[in-house]
């Protein structure tokens, strides 16, 4: 396949992966984040990198956002929200962090996963089950390397779908025709 054909196939996989996501659950993600104090994001590898798109958009909208393991990330406290992203829902470090939030108490746990029956999904207050098979399972027919379709589903569902839902609920835009650089919270140091 040439690269153009590959992009078409990937777009079909993305279309499939963004179907049938329970919108009520996504609206619950909105209310959980909106009513939370501070929002912490946790994940590994490309899943973490991809959820950072959504985390950044929340920051642009005025939410206080932190990435677990960054040097400037403070302790999580009661009233905060933890968003964890894991295709399998079985990452040991994410499970350990989820257990920590249970010990502290009064921290809402949102899980974005491909496996609604996973360990993390069972621990969560809100489970966002994306329309992709668990990467590497017998149902996984994607032509792409392990996890790529899940990551793309995270990008389109969480960053595009949910970010825009946030903006419509909050009555704000990304800067209109003038572009994102007009957002007062857009980074101005490189």
């Amino acid at each position: 396949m040439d690269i153009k054909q590959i992009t078409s196939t990937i777009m079909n996989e993305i279309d499939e992966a963004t179907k049938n996501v329970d919108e009520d659950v996504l609206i619950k993600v909105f209310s959980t984040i909106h009513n939370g104090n501070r929002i912490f994001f946790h994940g590994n590898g490309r899943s973490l990198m991809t959820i950072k798109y959504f985390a950044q958009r929340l920051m642009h909208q005025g939410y206080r956002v932190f990435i677990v393991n960054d040097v400037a990330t403070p302790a999580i406290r009661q009233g905060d929200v933890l968003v964890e992203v894991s295709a399998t829902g079985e990452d040991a470090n994410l499970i350990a962090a989820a257990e920590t939030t249970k010990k502290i108490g009064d921290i809402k746990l949102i899980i974005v996963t491909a496996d609604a029956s996973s360990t993390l999904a069972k621990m969560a207050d809100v489970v966002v089950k994306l329309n992709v098979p668990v990467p590497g399972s017998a149902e996984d027919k994607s032509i792409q390397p392990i996890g790529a379709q899940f990551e793309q589903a995270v990008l389109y569902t969480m960053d595009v779908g949910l970010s825009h839902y946030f903006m419509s609920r909050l009555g704000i835009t990304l800067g209109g025709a003038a572009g994102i650089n007009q957002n007062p919270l857009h980074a101005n140091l490189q």
Partner: protein
Amino acid sequence: MLREYCESAIKGTEELLAKIDYKKVETVAEHILNADNVFVVADVGRPGLALMNFTERLRQLRIRAYRLEESPPTPSVHKGDIVLIGSVDGEDATSITFMRSAKTLNIDYDLFTMTKGSTLEKDATETIIFDAEPKDELIAEEVFELAFYVLLDAIVLYLQEKLGASKEHMQKELPNLF
């Protein structure tokens, strides 16, 4: 409502991807295959995140790929290496600083951007232009960022085929320590 945003985004991405010059993309893929090392400038916002994701996949293909300025693992850059930059307007301060030193060191870089005629484009070996337009509620920058993400994932598959690397082979290269 949420699904409608996704559908707009998917349509917008598809329309933008249809306008890309794929001969140039293949040239970039060849640069990656022929380079001694691949470096990405990943300090620039969301295009930087896409390039960091790409670097992870290149490593799974056993291509030596690094994020510039990430110490300690990133070595120095030399002639024969290729640097990849993603930039909305081609005017990012970090990338321009790099470009100036790259010129003196004779290092090639390829640029992915949505803006024609930028400072970064002047000295780029190859430039992939994304002629992005707003799509429904999405601003042009968002459509660019999505298409850039998908194009990099498509390049991964292309490289995978060229190198004869199976999915299973790549899975073995996934990080296994957390």
